[in-house]
């Protein structure tokens, strides 16, 4: 029975015609050979001890050793936050818990000093803070760009277009050097400046996603609300925005992945994120032979986290398609 289904599946999907059959055999052979070589290396030849020894540097960078509990608490808080927005209960409650938990995570991590954040901890916290902060900013700019008020529209359009035309690394670097130039009295840590720069940059992208959502809300919705005498503020916040956000939710989650991936670029302002930590390990002559191990490890971590986010985004999209008729 199962053999028969398997057989017919293979007939259809692997050996449908001559070319497919040849391709299938070639690919199976090549993949099999690659996999054997790869697995043999991973299991016998690779020196994973180095990764294990450097795990601390990878995960939290130079975070003080006696303060490690803070990282654990932050991790727990972040898991709570993610869980809260994933669970299908009240959206408002989910967002509230997200804000509180993320705020608490930042709060817990601050005492050792922002300069001590590093490794995966830094990459994740940067992503969380930047994604969270750029959403309200992005919403404001999206409304601004679709406003009927010409001056507001011009300013918001200009901002969005400029930000979307220049590289992230340039914006982060620029804000990093400029902030102390016009606020010389206060000293702001590199990480905070990086977060500001990254948020300023990412808000423009979020704004464009949100704007596409605003445009996707049918005109009749606004008209119905207007015919009930609602003010523009009520219409925007209660009728249009919730529907727009629902439409662009998958895209916004996809943006979180972009933020996470882009967070590698903060090396430019001297921060040590996960990728940078790996490079530092490789600079150490003792580890120079472990290039492949280090890159494989980093690729694996990035790929797992990235795939999880992509998976979430895809599921949201599928869910949305199912629930709209």
């Amino acid at each position, binding site marked *: 029975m199962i053999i028969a289904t398997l057989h017919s599946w293979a007939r259809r999907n692997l050996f449908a015609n001559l070319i497919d059959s040849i391709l299938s055999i070639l690919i199976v052979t090549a993949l099999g050979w690659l996999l054997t070589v790869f697995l043999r290396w991973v299991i016998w030849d690779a020196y994973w001890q180095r990764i294990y020894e450097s795990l601390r540097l990878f995960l939290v960078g130079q975070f003080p050793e006696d303060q490690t509990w803070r990282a654990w608490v932050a991790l727990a808080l972040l898991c709570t936050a993610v869980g809260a927005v994933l669970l299908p209960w009240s959206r408002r409650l989910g967002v509230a818990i997200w804000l509180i938990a993320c705020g608490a995570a930042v709060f817990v991590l601050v005492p050792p000093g922002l300069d001590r954040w590093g490794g995966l901890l830094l990459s994740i916290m940067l992503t969380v803070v930047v994604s969270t902060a750029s959403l309200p900013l992005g919403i404001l700019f999206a409304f601004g760009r679709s406003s009927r008020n010409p001056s507001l529209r011009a300013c918001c359009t200009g901002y969005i277009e400029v930000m979307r035309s220049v590289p*992230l690394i340039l914006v982060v670097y620029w804000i990093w050097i400029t902030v102390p130039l016009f606020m010389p009295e206060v000293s702001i840590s590199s990480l905070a400046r990086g977060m500001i720069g990254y948020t300023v940059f990412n808000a423009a992208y979020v704004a464009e996603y949100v704007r596409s959502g605003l445009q996707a809300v049918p005109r009749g919705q606004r008209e119905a609300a207007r015919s009930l005498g609602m003010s523009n503020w009520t219409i925007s916040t209660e009728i249009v925005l919730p529907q727009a956000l629902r439409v662009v939710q998958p895209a916004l989650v996809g943006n979180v992945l972009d933020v996470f991936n*882009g967070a590698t670029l903060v090396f430019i302002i001297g921060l040590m994120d996960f990728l940078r930590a790996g490079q530092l390990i490789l600079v150490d002559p003792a580890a120079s032979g472990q*290039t*492949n191990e280090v890159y494989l490890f980093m690729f694996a971590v990035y790929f797992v986290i990235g*795939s999880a986010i992509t998976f979430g985004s895809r599921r949201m999209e599928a869910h949305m398609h199912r629930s709209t008729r």
Partner: protein
Amino acid sequence: MIEAKTKLWRSSLATPSVKRYVARVRYKLTHGAVVAAVIGLLILIALAIHQNLTSRGIDFSFAYLSAPSRFGISEGLAPVWTGWAPIFESVDATSSNLGMLEAGLFNTLKVALLAITFSTLVGVVLGVLRLSTNWLVRNLAFAIGEFIRNTPILIQLMFWYFAVLLQLPSSGSATKVSKWLVVEQSGVFLPLPHLSDSAGPASGFFVAVAIAFLAAACLRRFPARWRIALLGVGLCAIGASYALGFGINLDWPVLGRFGATGGLHFTPEMSAILITIIVNSAGYISEIVRGGIEGLAKGQWEAAAALGLSRGDTIRDIVLPQVFRIIIPSLTNRYISLTKDTAIGIAIGFPELFNVSGTVANQSGRDFETVIVVMTIYLLLSWLISALANFVNRRIALERA
């Protein structure tokens, strides 16, 4: 209550023009205020920075751009204007800061143009493969795209540079892969086509004629007979130019004791960033292409199948031409992203625009001015790409109209 409000409204109704005037004045005042506030804020920031700079004895000026740079970069050409056409020359410590930025822009453009071309080719192939009838091919293409899109581009660059290119056999003991391709630690070498020495202006003229006629022969708007005639004339022109001594020679890479020389040489940095961006963008383009193909109306596939076209023919003749029209906006965005992505070259020391600008800023102490210059250049680049895309889009729309 309602009565009172009504009265009020009605009494103001008596002078609608006054009301309208008030509304207009208020409208203009509001917008004036908003614009003024934004400009004011920007001026305030600029003033604060300026004051800060002057307090440190630095003034704001772009004069430094023409001063000698006093540093060198590993590769990059800057245009030197002697007459009506620029000559590209390599830059050194005596070149001006502006020349350095130009060389950086040259490198950025070089990578961007090559990457746009090749990532489109690879991406389209990968995207079409995702619709293969073969399960393995389909899913392999999917997995590759997924891996590329779910990992940061920077680690991909690091990987290609540190884990692949720099791990190659060192110069001298080069691995000569073939006559056509030499790969070693000092970079990638390809044969370089160049004009034969005997080529003169006359043969050049015939080449130009040939190109013009052959290009015209490719236009579909001419009837078939015309196109064959154009093709014939073009071929004759090629023959004439060849007879007049025009030719293209290949400059082969030569292996030497201290590494390969000659031919078309890509430094390891250039190779790494080019490979990274091509592969990375191909991953995104494959997704764009697949989305475009799947977004195409089912009716097109069915109509083609009803006509008895094979799957390959359907994709090539029916689907892809339509898909390209659909995906031009997404492709444009990708090309803009790709151009901006070249800025990560700084991570491996490739002297692209952002990297060079950093050095210029450091050497001259002019962070602020340099950033303004560089930002403007990136803005112009992005606008240029969108303008080109809009132009293409409009041309296509016109042709179909």
